[in-house]
């Protein structure tokens, strides 16, 4: 959560066709902004877990959460407060490297960063995988971009779970 007005929301939804469209459609129709969204299976068959980072002031976020609650395909909604939440994002970063020295320097940076590794190397490129908080990803990408030239980046969007016993699991 790098931005002040960003809020992380965890959702448990039915795993039906069209559910994503209902959620993103609601955001679009009501003029809300999604900074990032990630979707995958949840711990329970038939249900998906979605993590949305939404933008807006306090009133807007309140309204977003209420409107999400209203969607019949949404089973649970949880406002994930940063202080109580573990938040991670993954990124794949492909860089053009001009020579061996540059490649070597990047690999040194990868060694220093916990959560980063090299996953593909060619004569002209090196591809890295990095996991961590949004801020960590940003700083890592900034650093390697000083050594190589960034060709492309794929980011997963934010994943988040509340710390401790609390959950939105149906169990």
């Amino acid at each position, binding site marked *: 959560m790098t931005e002040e007005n960003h809020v992380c929301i965890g959702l448990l939804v039915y795993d039906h066709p069209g559910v994503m469209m209902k959620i993103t459609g609601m955001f679009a129709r009501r003029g809300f902004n999604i900074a990032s969204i990630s979707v995958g299976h949840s711990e329970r068959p038939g249900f998906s877990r979605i993590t949305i980072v939404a933008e807006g002031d306090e*009133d807007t976020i309140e*309204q977003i959460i209420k*409107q999400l609650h*209203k969607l019949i395909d949404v*089973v649970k909604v949880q406002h994930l407060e940063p202080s109580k939440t573990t938040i991670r994002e993954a990124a794949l970063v492909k860089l053009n490297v001009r020579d061996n020295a540059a490649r070597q320097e990047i690999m040194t940076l990868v060694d220093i960063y916990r959560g980063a590794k090299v996953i593909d190397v060619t004569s002209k490129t090196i591809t890295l995988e990095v996991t961590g908080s949004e801020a960590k990803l940003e700083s890592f990408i900034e650093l390697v971009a000083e050594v190589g030239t960034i060709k492309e980046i794929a980011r997963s969007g934010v994943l988040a779970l509340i710390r401790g016993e609390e959950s939105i699991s149906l169990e």
Partner: protein
Amino acid sequence: MKGTEIISKVLKDSGNTTLFGYPGGQIMPFFDQIYGDDEIRLILVRHEQAAGHAADGFARASGKLGVCVTTSGPGATNLVTALANAYYDSSPVLAFSGQVGTHLIGNDAFQEADVVGCTMSVTKQNYQIKDVNNVGRVFKEAMYIATTGRPGPVFIDLPRDIQQAECNLAEPIPETIELISYNPRVFSKGASLQIKRALDLIMNAQYPIIIAGGGIVLANAQDELQELVNLLHIPVVYTLMGKGSIPDDHPYVLGMLGMHGRKRSNFAISEADVILALGTRFSDRITGDLAHFPGQPNAKIIHVDIDTAEIGKNVPVDVPIVADLKLALHEFLSQLNNRLADPSTATINSWWYRWIQELKDYNGIPNVTKEGPTGRIVPEKVIFELNNILQADDIVVTEVGQAQMYAAHYLNRQKPRTWISSGGLGTMGFGFPAGIGAKIAKPDSEVWIVAGDGSFQMNLHELATVKQNDIKVNIIIMNNQYLGMVRQWQELLYDKRYSYTCLACKDGTYFPDFLKLADAYGLEGVRVEKPDEVAGALEQARKADATFLIEMLLEPEANTLPMLPPGGAVSTFFSRRGEKKSIYDWFARLPRNESEANGYKVERITPEEDDINVYFE
């Protein structure tokens, strides 16, 4: 059991045996299923939009689910307007349409359209059924969702092969519906505590007021509302959707508020120090400029609504209460009665009783017996005479625009569900088919459709539907030869530049000839040109055996006033002379202490601007 047999059985088991619809290729299996089935009645309309509006009108008049069915592609996309209309007015409608076979979906097959996508944002829920084993569950679930909580339309996309497929479940229709994600929350302990806080505010306030919204009608809470008003002696203003939730002639009912509200209503809301909002969503047509709402900056707002998302959406709320209105008002009454029974808590501090009569007397419905400046009827005259002839169980269904607003201002409605109007979406073309639906729901009630000449032409083909199905409604076409409301805006805001709002020909002739049109459909009608003929024509319509059409020739440039300037506060107005005025030009600010109250009169002046005679200057 086949898919269509399951649907038919679910409809019959739930008592939803009246359908509005239109056949076509991909819904043929369902139409074949109901062929010759005496238990299901389908009203064949002439356009799918009308099927949707008729189902909506049926739902509003009866309080039950309205059902409509169409074919795929254009049949289903024609429903979109009707679904949106039902959605914004929280009307319980079940719509289902055929779809190309599941193996063709996504191939852009003939009459295939992504109607699940098209209807997603204008329905409470929608489905595409891809397995016949889900048909029973989805239909039951759809009906449950449409009619519970905050009601709304639900759409089902039904591929042709699914209609014909055999369901192999032992129990094709589940006994009960389990929806862990949907719990139409009705009442909680927390609400009781909030109601206590609300009563503290109301009983201690000097000028508390109630806004009655469409939620009262949907929750059937009219008796509770009236009882509350009778105990508290505080005024009620209502929204367009709330008309009928309390009798207009009740001494504490001031009328509609907002954009086209009554002056006295907008004055009362501007002066209120506590607002009890019941089942309303504070739409922009109610509040005017939000920076000036409520009119008293320190006014407290209590908002009761079944939909959490409506609370705090448009205006900040001091006491939020999420509850079914009927249950909430029961709790209000029970706590209030307890307080009134104990002399130490029985005091109600409202001062309204001192001024309400004067306000209530202000600005009744004018009876304009003279012709207007161009020799035609002044629109208020039509509404005056209609009001005289209306009986309590008659149902008034309006189109959208000036005629709708005249009717909303002046018609005296006594009961909920006897006033049907398109509020949220403002759909021209809604009134006539919705009136058909209302008549089917309440065959013993006389149905009056108050239409403009513009709106009526949006679905006039339904004249064939009323003829073929022997449905009797009374159609009043308020013909001013303009799209009157837009023309009025052009007059007041665009320097009379009447851009494409005149419906007459260059030489002043007007088409269609509505009487010939009625005649073409085998129906009777009458054209009224003089004020003294209005009452007789309405009487003739009431006595007619079949649908009867009255064309009222009106003053072309009559305005529906008062009207808030767009973006203006709820206390601002256009006068009859088209000048921007303040509500405080008409009414003096309410006294807040005894010395101010001494010799106080609500009505400041009798401003000539407010006089209907401005017409004749």
